[in-house]
């Protein structure tokens, strides 16, 4: 069967925001069609229209030339369209297996009773293919974001759909998992499945997509076969300007040690990790998912207790589990890896989301000084080029990348001394990414110590003054700018270069 879907003249407005403006978009069986654009360009909105999540204002959707009605997610499913959403759409309190089969359960014979065993079996088989050691009966709330992403992917893959929409499916995946996903995509493509693929990573797109479409401000500005265009051209059409590439400046770093971590050990998470971070230094921890770096970062920020070893900051040893309030007071800031769980406050305005950590500084006589807050908020929005209709906008209406920018921008305070970033550029478009790198570099120049966890090796190399590779909670090796050996780092991360102690 050679299915194709055509979206014609699609329009959608949210109040005064024209999110989609007369968009034509098609997807053909057996092909990967990549959709790219800046944060807030309208990619997810277009796909939500296709998935029946939101209702379009104008336009038609045709399946094999016949107009179809997609008024709700069920309709999309009925027409063989599955989606991997950018924001997790899993049910936290249900198990992995229940989530995967939610809405299309298997039954015992013709009875209404669930065939739990069969569902668990199939889920386990898929998890195995992904190399994920997960109990299908464990609740999703206990999974980390990478695992959730995989469950989400498996759910789409197991849906027997002919068209799968993937909205930034790799943003939380390790290199290994990404490769696996691409393997699946290629196989499915061969089986005649159509895929719409949204990503901010040009190499991914040029690796797997046949067609690439660029959106800007709700309009299509380019649609080409990937063989007829180049990464640079696509990036350029996203804004209409050349990518102002980030080039790491040469600098000398002080000897002033800001953070000193000695022999840090926590059962199951990290073992005997030691390093120091000087003022003005950008230190990147990298490894595979499960390397223990996020847990380590949380210990530094005072979120966890029960570790051995010491963390000294500005020369004093920190009390384990002293809480983030003390950390923030002492000039630390952190961007967590799980935006929805503990990054944003969905019901609150962009202003609240940005201004919260440093509100006390914007008070006069105990009262909030609105002008001061407004200035801080405007600056944060401007510097990270966040796209929002106004600071009053509830943050939940922002696009995924823009939410991420706010999680970052709220820490741009003059008294900041240590910034801890877990996957800071997740879901952020290429242009904004360069901006964020620049901001990080500026912070470092000002003397802020920056501790970053990143799983993207290119980002690591581009940004770091120093890199520490981790494998299963142990530090493997340390590299200093500009002596980065990408291959060796990758080998470290995969556990090939373990120091002798680790084998003992």
């Amino acid at each position: 069967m050679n299915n194709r879907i055509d979206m014609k003249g699609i329009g959608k407005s949210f109040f005064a925001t024209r999110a989609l403006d007369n968009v034509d978009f098609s997807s053909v069986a057996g092909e990967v069609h990549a959709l790219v654009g800046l944060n807030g360009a309208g990619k997810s909105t277009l796909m939500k229209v296709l998935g029946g999540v939101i209702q379009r204002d104008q336009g038609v959707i045709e399946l094999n030339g016949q107009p179809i009605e997609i008024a709700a997610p069920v309709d999309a499913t009925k027409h063989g369209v599955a989606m991997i959403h950018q924001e997790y759409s899993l049910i936290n309190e249900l198990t992995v297996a229940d989530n995967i089969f939610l809405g299309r359960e298997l039954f015992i014979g013709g009875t209404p009773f669930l065939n739990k065993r069969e569902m668990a079996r199939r889920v386990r088989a898929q998890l195995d293919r992904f190399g994920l050691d997960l109990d299908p009966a464990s609740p999703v709330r206990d999974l980390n974001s990478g695992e959730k992403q995989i469950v989400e992917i498996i759910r789409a893959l197991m849906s027997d759909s002919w068209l799968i929409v993937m909205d930034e499916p790799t943003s939380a995946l390790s290199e290994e998992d990404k490769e696996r996903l691409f393997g699946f995509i290629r196989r499915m493509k061969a089986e005649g499945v159509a895929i719409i693929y949204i990503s901010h990573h040009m190499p991914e797109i040029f690796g797997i997509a046949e067609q690439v479409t660029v959106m800007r401000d709700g309009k299509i500005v380019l649609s080409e076969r990937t063989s007829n265009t180049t990464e640079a051209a696509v990036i350029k059409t996203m804004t209409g300007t050349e990518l102002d590439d980030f080039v790491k400046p040469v600098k000398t770093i002080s000897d002033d040690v800001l953070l000193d971590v000695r022999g840090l050990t926590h059962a199951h998470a990290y073992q005997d990790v030691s390093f120091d971070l000087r003022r003005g230094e950008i230190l990147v921890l990298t490894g595979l998912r499960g390397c223990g770096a996020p847990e380590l970062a949380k210990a530094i920020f005072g979120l966890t207790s029960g570790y051995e070893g010491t963390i000294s900051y500005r020369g004093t040893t920190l009390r384990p589990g002293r809480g983030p309030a003390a950390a923030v007071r002492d000039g630390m800031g952190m961007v967590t890896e799980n935006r929805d769980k503990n990054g944003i406050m969905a019901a609150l305005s962009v202003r609240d989301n940005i201004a919260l950590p440093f509100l006390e500084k914007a008070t006069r006589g105990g009262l909030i000084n609105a002008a001061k807050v407004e200035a801080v908020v405007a600056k944060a929005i401007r510097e990270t080029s966040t796209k929002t209709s106004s600071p009053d906008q509830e943050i939940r209406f922002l696009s995924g990348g823009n939410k991420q920018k706010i999680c970052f921008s709220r820490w741009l305070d003059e008294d900041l001394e240590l910034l801890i970033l877990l996957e800071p550029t997740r879901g952020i478009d290429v242009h904004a990414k360069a901006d964020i790198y620049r901001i990080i570099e500026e912070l470092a120049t000002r003397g802020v110590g920056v501790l970053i966890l990143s799983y993207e090796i290119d980002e690591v190399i581009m940004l770091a003054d120093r890199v520490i590779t981790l494998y299963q909670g142990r530090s493997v090796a340390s590299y200093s700018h500009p002596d980065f050996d990408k291959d060796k780092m990758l080998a470290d991360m995969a556990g090939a270069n373990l120091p002798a102690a680790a084998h003992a």
Partner: protein
Amino acid sequence: MTSTVTVNPTAAKAAISGLTLRYLVLAGLIVLASVGFSLANENFYSLVNIGILLRSIAVLFLVSMGMTFVMLTGGIDLSVGSNVAFAGGVGVITLTTTGSAPLGFLTAILAGMAIGTINGIFIGRLKLSAFMVTLATFALARGLALVIYDATSINVSDPTFLWLGGTSWGNIPVVIPFVFCVFVALSVLLYRTPFGRNVYAAGANFNTAFVLGRRPERSVVWIYALSGALAGLSAIVTVGRVSSGQPWSGLYLEFDAITAVILGGTSLFGGRGRLLGTILGVLLYGIIINGLVLTGTNPYLQSLIKGMILLGVVLLDSWTQRGKAA
């Protein structure tokens, strides 16, 4: 760096008007209800009746404002009604033993806060279900009130103690300007101080608030303590109103307060709502109750009518909100 901030005035206006509209609808309903009841009984519009109405909902105003703070955090406080009785008991007994009204005020508010603090610690620090904890203190505070009063009332004649709840300037009970001052103070607290932003943050996402160093667990303790303090204040008003301390005062107050707060547009799930809505909600609810008394129908019929009016209110509200607020 390119600036993509598109501050779009119309968008902001559209977003606000969802809320404004809700308040307009509430105000409209208040007018509608008053007109309806005044047709049923010409006395409804008498100044005296308005004074009675306002005085009778003064306590509901106070308690509902505390409840708004609590519900903004996604919590609930079922203990306020019992707390009014308990705090009143402590205040009155202090008054009768020491003879000092200010001391009585102080102990009443402290007693209310004490119950609130117990709630807050169990809910904020131990992370237990607000419903369950305050259901327990709902029983506990009422029980303590019965115990300290030994189930009988205590007469109060101290004019200072009775002033707030019992005095009127003409037809205006003094408690109404007082409630207004509390409203202003609480508005400043909620909208203009970091504490107020913490209230919203704790309700919108407790985890995020925690990671941002806002100590939501501590905010929650204070919020329940505030609710308790307002119950203590209400106790003083109640004692003044009935010129005695009563072990059964404040009965069902919590349900009236929750109803009024929800009518005022505050979500049960936290993070959304404003004090102004609560004020309107209390007014509307109070008018319905007062009006039903005036119509003097059979009490069962009154229940039926009350149910239908409540339903009508939310139906109308949802009808006008349709298509607004996404």
